């Protein structure tokens, strides 16, 4: 499976490394045309305001909406989760409006409140080490969204069909089980569909 990582800004190399550890092939995606060549897309952590602006500038908004609309898998981590959300708390305009959820940015506070912890995730047998950096939270989800993990009563991992999102950074540890889950989503999509 060829998994693209949106490479406008943020932790691109770390995701590519995790994809390769999980048995996939990772590529950096800088241009819209590359979406035709990948089996799944990861939107990495970074600054959501920067990534959002560059996505608009280089016409990624409609292109990724169309890509996901065809059933192709998309995975957003931290800033990527913010970018996927239908609704954002506060002043920032929503970006892709793909996942039926409301997201609060910097929900834990500033950098000094950033942390790592062990986290239970549905479908993964033992806890995952989750690194939260100025992380967002999912405040509310629609009926079609499945909640995969909760930390201190707040939703931090969720899936809606072909869309996956985490508040934290699975790419910053050597534990690539969330990337494996995403590659399986891409394989399932490949079996039911011919062509991207």
């Amino acid at each position, binding site marked *: 499976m060829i998994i693209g990582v949106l490479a406008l800004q943020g932790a691109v*190399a770390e995701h590519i490394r995790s994809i390769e550890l999980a048995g996939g092939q990772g590529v950096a995606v800088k241009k819209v045309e590359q979406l035709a060549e990948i089996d799944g897309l990861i939107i990495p952590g970074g*600054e959501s305001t920067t990534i959002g602006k*560059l996505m608009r500038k280089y016409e990624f908004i409609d292109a990724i909406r169309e890509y996901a609309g065809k059933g192709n898998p998309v995975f957003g981590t931290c800033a990527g989760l913010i970018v996927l959300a239908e609704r954002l708390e506060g002043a920032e305009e929503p970006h892709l409006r793909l996942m039926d959820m409301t997201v609060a940015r910097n929900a834990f506070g500033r950098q000094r*409140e950033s942390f790592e912890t062990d986290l239970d995730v549905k479908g993964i047998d033992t806890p995952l080490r989750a690194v939260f950096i100025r992380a967002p939270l999912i405040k509310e989800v629609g009926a079609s969204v499945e909640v995969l993990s909760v930390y201190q009563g707040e939703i931090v991992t969720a899936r809606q069909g072909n869309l996956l999102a985490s508040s934290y950074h699975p790419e910053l540890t050597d534990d690539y089980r969330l990337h494996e889950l995403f590659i399986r989503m891409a394989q399932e999509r490949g079996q039911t569909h011919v062509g991207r």
Partner: protein
Amino acid sequence: METGTSRVKRGMAEMQKGGVIMDVMSAEQAKIAEAAGATAVMALERVPSDIRAAGGVARMANPELVEDVMKVVSIPVMAKARIGHYVEAKVLESLGVDYIDESEVLTPADEVYHIDKSLFTIPFVCGAKDLGEALRRIQEGASMLRTKGEPGTGNIVEAVRHMRIITGQVRRIQNLSKDELFHEAKVLGVNYDLLLNVHTSGRLPVVNFAAGGVATPSDAALMMHLGADGVFVGSGIFKSDNPEKFARAIVEATTHYEDYALIARVSKDLGEAMKGIDISKLHSSERMQDRGL
């Protein structure tokens, strides 16, 4: 649940990669920087070129200014403490600043010792002009590095030199045998295990940005081409004719540093860039890069 771990502190710098961190002197400039796509802002009272012009002792910014900037932007806010000034750094941490730059741009408070950065929950970035400085700062607890360059000159030559030196030294370390590594650790004044990590991974263990003299979109792209993970722009933006447009152009050139037609397009109609300084015309006491070794 653990805060302030090395993974959390270094991870924060990883999230800045491919981005531009801009010096701002007011809340208003911070908003312009954020709107232009900056991944973080550095709040300070005077940009390096003004510090250079003003002379005297340059210190940590006024807490009021730092708080004003923190109030108006949602992106991370960084601030500078003087080299070795533990208390300025603790004050900035108490304000809730997201990253501290222990910076040679300010007048050093200690000409021998740096701050023990491992004692802080928030991460630090430090300048380095060679691998020895880089690894010593990491040993002291820095979670991010940047080239020193020669701040406030609008002249990229020193940042290029420092990036070239560091990447060249990393390549050389990769090829050393174990007995040579023991000796090299002694020469560089660094911990053997840290040097071994560079030898095996072929890279620095933390993110390394370019800083000090970036004045045009092409300068930013050149530093990315040379292997920088991102770019700090100090005096370049708010000393140019059209800061908003200039800031956007630097952001685009950093993202697409290999797309030369794009860099040409964003470089049009930017007006005058900041006036540069020939480094050889600087007196040795005016060279900020020689502070904090």
